[in-house]
């Protein structure tokens, strides 16, 4: 379940992008979970038309997933709507996603922009949009060129076919997704209902990233009269049975495409981990570290990076001082950097990013504790987190070698702000009852920290909107206000990295 300020943040984003009515519907779904249309109407006291239109907008922009669920006994089903919190938050990262494409496939940036702005489009609609955006006097790209650039996005998994619009899901039955996506197979903890619905709606990887087929012009001309009846006709997708031309037509006219947020988040995760570790690298290891990331191939999952040794060597050789490095040296450095030979392919090295992510999360929390409560709090907090079990006051004093009064004061401050909890232990001895206190880290401190992150993001957004309103009203301090707004937007962009980090990317 999303925390209180997480919901407020999501509602704020939807309100800014689509208006208060849509945000009301979104907020209702986030607070109460998946609901059918009638239930939303009842709770919000809006007309069915208003709710329906709001849901259509949210579905169009991938913020809500519909699914069919059994209703009562018998064969009756009802359509439920589930808000996708992660996708809502991704809306404030579109500029980061575009910068990823700009660096990788710059010629396809405009296509991605179209998908991000419109949520989901057919290829035909994308072509229409691209052509309409061409400035006067510029060369209009051909359909073939647009298809080629679009397929580059599909091949790199930046773009995917939209999931099933209304799959069947019974919450009472522990349904396993039929998708071949490895993430569903390797999840060891119980998935929430939300994740199960998303998995159920997902297409297989082969289908999800199936490119738009390229058809020869000559072959299509000969059968024009036959295929003119296809427009507006619905057919089931079956790549094996329909000929290539029909397949291509369907892929261009009927299939809805959207940005694959998972891929973009993974790209940002890689960049974050690569940059995060750089300050800790010893002199001479930076080229190898950078080359490892540059040489990575299509990823097997969202938690690791795999690179072939040949690709690493090639890129190391292109860097300053790289030609002098031997294979043994590079291999040893990679292992020191926790890049280990892959068990599936001994000529590749694999790096588990989750360790870097977890360490970064701990560093962020510890750093904030240090800033807010002082160095003693930092030491004590790290001790309690590391040990993970209740620790008696005197033991804390002995281990940290801090003054007792400082320890007491610090423990109280951390206790008051819910970072730690305490328990009184009574011990009967010959001289009478003695009591002492044991302390441990509260198991909800991470959730609380994440909620504070959401709260901070919400406040930054509110300030940006406030200054935007002041600018609209007109002020003699326009330049100052614009500068303040830019500071806030930059802070929000940086703060968003924290949000991604603590959502595990």
């Amino acid at each position: 379940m999303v925390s209180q300020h997480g919901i407020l943040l999501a509602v704020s984003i939807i309100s800014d992008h689509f208006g208060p009515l849509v945000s009301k519907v979104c907020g209702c779904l986030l607070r109460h979970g998946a609901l059918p249309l009638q239930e939303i109407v009842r709770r919000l006291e809006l007309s069915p038309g208003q709710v329906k239109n709001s849901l259509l907008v949210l579905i169009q922009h991938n913020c809500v997933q519909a699914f069919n669920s059994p209703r009562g006994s018998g064969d009756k089903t009802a359509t439920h709507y589930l808000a996708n919190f992660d996708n809502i938050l991704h809306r404030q990262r579109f500029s980061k996603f575009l910068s990823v494409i700009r660096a990788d496939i710059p010629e396809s940036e405009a296509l991605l922009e179209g998908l991000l702005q419109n949520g989901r489009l057919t290829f035909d609609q994308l072509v229409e949009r691209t052509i309409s955006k061409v400035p006067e006097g510029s060369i209009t790209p051909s359909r073939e060129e647009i298809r080629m650039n679009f397929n580059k996005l599909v091949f790199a998994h930046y773009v995917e076919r939209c999931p099933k619009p209304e799959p069947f899901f019974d919450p009472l039955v522990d349904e396993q997704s039929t998708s071949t996506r490895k993430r569903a197979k390797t999840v060891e903890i119980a998935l929430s209902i939300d994740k199960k619905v998303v998995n159920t709606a997902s297409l297989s990887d082969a289908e999800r990233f199936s490119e738009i087929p390229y058809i020869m012009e000559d072959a299509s001309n000969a059968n024009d009269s036959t295929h003119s009846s296809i427009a507006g006709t619905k057919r089931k997708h079956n790549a094996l049975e329909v000929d290539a031309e029909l397949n291509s037509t369907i892929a261009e006219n009927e299939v809805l495409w959207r940005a694959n947020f998972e891929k973009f988040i993974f790209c940002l995760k890689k960049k974050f981990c690569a940059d995060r570790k750089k300050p800790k690298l010893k002199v001479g290891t930076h080229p190898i570290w950078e080359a490892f990331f540059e040489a990575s191939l299509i990823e097997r999952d969202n938690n690791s990076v795999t690179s072939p040794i040949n690709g690493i060597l090639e890129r190391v050789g292109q860097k300053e001082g790289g030609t002098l490095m031997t294979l043994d040296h590079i291999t040893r450095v990679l292992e020191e950097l926790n890049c280990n030979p892959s068990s599936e392919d001994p000529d590749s090295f694999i790096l588990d990013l989750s360790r870097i992510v977890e360490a970064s999360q701990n560093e962020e929390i510890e750093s904030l504790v240090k800033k807010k409560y002082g160095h003693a709090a930092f030491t004590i907090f790290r001790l309690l987190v590391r040990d993970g079990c209740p620790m008696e006051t005197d033991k804390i004093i002995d281990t940290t070698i801090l003054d007792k009064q400082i320890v007491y004061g610090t423990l109280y401050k951390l206790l008051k702000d819910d970072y730690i909890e305490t328990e009184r232990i009574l011990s009967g001895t010959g001289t009478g009852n003695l009591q002492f206190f044991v302390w441990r880290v509260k198991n909800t401190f991470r959730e609380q920290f994440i909620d504070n992150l959401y709260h901070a993001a919400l406040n930054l957004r509110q300030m940006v909107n406030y200054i935007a309103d002041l600018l609209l009203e007109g002020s003699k301090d326009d330049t100052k206000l614009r500068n303040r707004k830019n500071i806030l937007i930059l802070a929000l962009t940086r703060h968003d990295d924290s949000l991604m980090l603590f959502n595990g990317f």
Partner: protein
Amino acid sequence: MPPRKRPPPPVKASDTPPETKPKLAPPSRPTAAAASPSPASSPGPRPPPVPILPDSILNAFPPPEREIYKLVFSGGDRGMTQTEIRTRTRMQPNTLSRHLRSLTSATKGVLKVVNSVHKRAEKMYMDARIDPSPEITGGTWYRDGQLDSDAVAAARRRCRDQIDRLGGVATADAIFAGIGRDCPSTAYSIEQIRDILRTMALDMELEEVRSTGVGEFSDLRAGRVCYRRGGAPQGGMMEGIPCGVCPRVDECSPDGVISPKTCVYYKKWLQMDF
């Protein structure tokens, strides 16, 4: 229940350094600090190293004072608080205070008051001839019941310097041997050095790692715990905005009395007049 502080190895009287003092073996009486579920399993107090005052002296004291002295003497080098004495003797507080004043006075002086690092609110009494145990005084890092910050800082500095001298990464044993060699006037025990190193690792001033036997660890056996200088502190994304360190964040809400629009920290951060 074993004592919380491990006793240092015995040292010759001539080698006693100014920073430490010879410690008496603490009695194995269960202490308030122990979270032992079975106090009955704890060994009783060990016999104090000095004999009890002879009857020829004790008989000169009034019977209540004699009883108080014997009771306090039985506490050995861990002493006894006034509360404990009163509980056992069932004396009135005023009466007890009067007797204790007499026993600690300059004329009799058979008992003394000691500052306990753990029970600062209460006075602790023990035989005037006995040195208080490290558990009362706090051990090496405590002087007169107060943390000796200078001693701790000096020990940390020496550990840091040794790690630099030993090539940037070293085991606790090597650091201990190096300090003993370079600073013979100090007489840290290996356990004290380990305690300091663990604290420095908690502070992230040092990093505790396991040797791999290769690279920078080529001089060390694989698997051994080593210490090296910690890297630059990372983190701090949340601290760059006012909300991150705000003490009133729990009271803040979009339209509340405390909100971003009314926030004095935002005003200061953005240098804005609302």
